[in-house]
């Protein structure tokens, strides 16, 4: 690998030099991970529930066509209009067309990862619709033309001072409007409330879609999800095809795990179950509900080795626990979904050639698998992707050459023994206090950030032989 490294490495190195970012990441991931542990310790039968959730997700995926059709039929019978979008363009074009037909000029949005994935905002803006993000974190991201760096806490990388300066410069906030976090919160409430009241469209995602009732389930803490789906006369929900669960009972299982895994709450503040638009006699609610079912590469994932990743419920627990994410944060991944989940989902949907380095952004320690509420075997999926990358000829030359050399030695015991002996001798000769600060040539990448230990004087086999002697 060249000295400049891959772009992931370059971005991580930048992140690692940013001491303020690292302090913010330490605080946020530490607190979220600790909250999750406390919540699960206090929960009776937590492991049983996680096993059950895993079975529900796997079962649903194994009959996804059936459950999706059932969901669409039920939602339509409740008055919703369901649109099927194979690609990102299908989804965004449908929403833009709808906005044009209704003469919409503005839209409020509650946080939706799918909408980030299909880059809906850009398409709507191009269609002349002003889009306002309403989740506090997402709003800051939008005002600063930034990108989110965490699934649950989008501005984990920004400080309060950053936000204060931004709001003063871009939104004309006064000093007292941004004096502290409660002041910023109150300022944002006043500003965005006006947007909710005058918006023509409300755009949301969905955490789950319930097949038996045709309901979408939306979880937020701030209440922006409720305002988005209540105030404007038109509600459009973008739903990934894998969000479906068969029954309300299954939904109950998933909801007990989602908030606990994400923030350590028993339930998020608002869990909305939306079944069709406003009905006759109801005083409020949207006149129209459009549900856009988005594939955008998900069926390609489903038809292969990575299918399990579609069981993900987007809680972010794997980010908070990942030693790589904890140090470099979300932007290093340059992917809508960062962290372990993103390192599988993004290459899975977009192809390994678009981001060959992401599956390597992991120590394979398995902490993500342990933290995952539905026990997705993320390390296995990362290894699979590494293999796919190698097969596609995406592995760097030094790695291919190194593996070939190792293969040569490993299949010839005499050569293996001889090279091991040479390596032991050489590393012990070059080491000071048992560590090598620098390795030569192509191996120098390893020692750029850490020392390499000198090899032991005797190999394991030699030690074992010596012990066997009476």
């Amino acid at each position, binding site marked *: 690998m060249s000295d400049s490294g891959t772009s992931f490495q370059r971005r991580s190195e930048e992140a690692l030099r940013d001491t303020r970012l690292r302090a913010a990441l330490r605080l946020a991931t530490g607190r979220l991970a600790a909250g999750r542990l406390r919540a699960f310790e206090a929960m009776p039968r937590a492991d049983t529930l996680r096993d059950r959730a895993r079975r529900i997700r796997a079962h649903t995926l194994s009959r996804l066509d059936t459950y999706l059709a059932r969901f669409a039929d039920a939602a339509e019978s409740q008055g919703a209009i369901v649109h099927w979008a194979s690609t990102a363009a299908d989804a965004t074009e449908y929403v833009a067309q709808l906005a044009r037909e209704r003469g919409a000029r503005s839209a409020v949005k509650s946080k939706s990862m799918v909408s980030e994935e299909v880059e809906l905002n850009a398409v709507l803006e191009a269609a002349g619709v002003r889009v306002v993000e309403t989740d506090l974190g997402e709003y800051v991201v939008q005002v600063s033309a930034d990108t989110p760096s965490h699934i649950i806490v989008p501005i984990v990388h920004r400080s309060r001072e950053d936000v204060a300066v931004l709001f003063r410069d871009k939104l004309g906030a006064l000093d007292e409007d941004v004096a502290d976090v409660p002041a910023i919160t109150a300022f944002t409430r006043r500003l965005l409330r006006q947007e909710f009241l005058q918006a023509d469209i409300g755009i949301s995602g969905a955490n789950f879609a319930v097949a038996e009732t045709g309901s979408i389930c939306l979880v937020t803490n701030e*209440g922006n999800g409720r305002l988005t789906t209540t105030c404007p006369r038109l509600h459009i929900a973008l739903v990934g095809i894998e969000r479906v669960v068969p029954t309300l009972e299954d*939904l109950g299982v998933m909801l007990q795990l989602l908030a606990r895994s994400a923030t350590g709450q028993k339930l998020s*503040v608002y869990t909305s179950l939306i*079944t069709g638009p406003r009905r006759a006699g109801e005083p409020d609610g949207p006149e129209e509900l459009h549900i856009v079912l988005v594939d955008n590469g998900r069926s390609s994932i489903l038809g292969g080795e990575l299918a399990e990743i579609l069981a993900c419920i987007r809680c972010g627990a794997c980010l908070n626990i990942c030693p790589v994410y904890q140090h470099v944060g979300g932007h290093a991944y340059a992917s809508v979904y960062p962290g372990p989940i993103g390192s599988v989902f993004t290459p899975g949907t977009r192809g390994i050639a678009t981001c060959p380095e992401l599956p390597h952004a992991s120590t394979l320690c398995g902490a993500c698998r342990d933290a995952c509420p539905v026990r997705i075997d993320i390390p296995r999926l990362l290894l699979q992707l590494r293999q796919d990358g190698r097969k596609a000829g995406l592995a760097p030359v030094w790695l291919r050459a190194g593996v070939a050399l190792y293969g040569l030695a490993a299949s010839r015991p005499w050569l293996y023994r001889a090279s091991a002996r040479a390596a032991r001798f050489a590393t012990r000769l070059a080491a000071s206090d048992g560590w090598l600060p620098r390795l030569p040539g192509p191996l120098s990448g390893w020692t750029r950030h850490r020392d390499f230990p000198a090899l032991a004087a005797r190999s394991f086999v030699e030690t074992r032989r010596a012990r066997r002697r009476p």
Partner: protein
Amino acid sequence: MTVQRDRMLERIAAAIKKARLPEGTSEHAQPPSVTTARANEEDRHGAHADQRDLAEGFARELAAVGGHVYRPAAMEEVAVIVGRILRAKGATRVIAWDEEWLGWPGAYRSLGAMGIEIAHCDVGSDSQQRKPKLKSVESAAAGITGAAAALADSGTLVIASGPGRGRLASLLPPVHVAIVAPRTLYPSLPAFLAAHGDIVESCSNVVLVTGPSRTADIEMTLSLGVHGPKEVHAILLPDA
């Protein structure tokens, strides 16, 4: 539309045949809910728990997430409690559900006696009128609603929409007062869904409210009332 639907479903069906899913999945011809009946039994068993224990659990959990709980011994005290909450806010106008849905007999008369104006928010069917109507109730100081149920293990209020029961009352104002009728307490969300899941189909909007609106987006600092109500007051009515 149906062409797109069929095409997408066909692609998914083809993918499933090649999918590598977690072991044992294919054996689950029945939905997992059937295979885990035992766990459900435990959930349902809780439904018979003593209402008093449930009320205590609910009060403890809602307080833990920043809500306020009141347990008047007699119906007459409800007006006193509501009056105290509204006076503390200097409220003169509230958005309220229709009286029959509040579970608080004489609610409108009591509010009127306190000098509180009751705003009804019907956004109507004329799309020109919608935004002005929304704006006209935005300044209400509090929202008063009933509740379909309350969940003891999480301190959650179940608020269901319908005629006379708008969504805005528990959403727009900075203060939400919910009147919880006796015998509507359930131990947990699964227990409630098992007993009353039909509410999800019969109401277009069911929201589980667990405490006041909150955010910790900035530096993990907790802050209340960012979009929804900053205060949530639940009044548990006494048994008749």
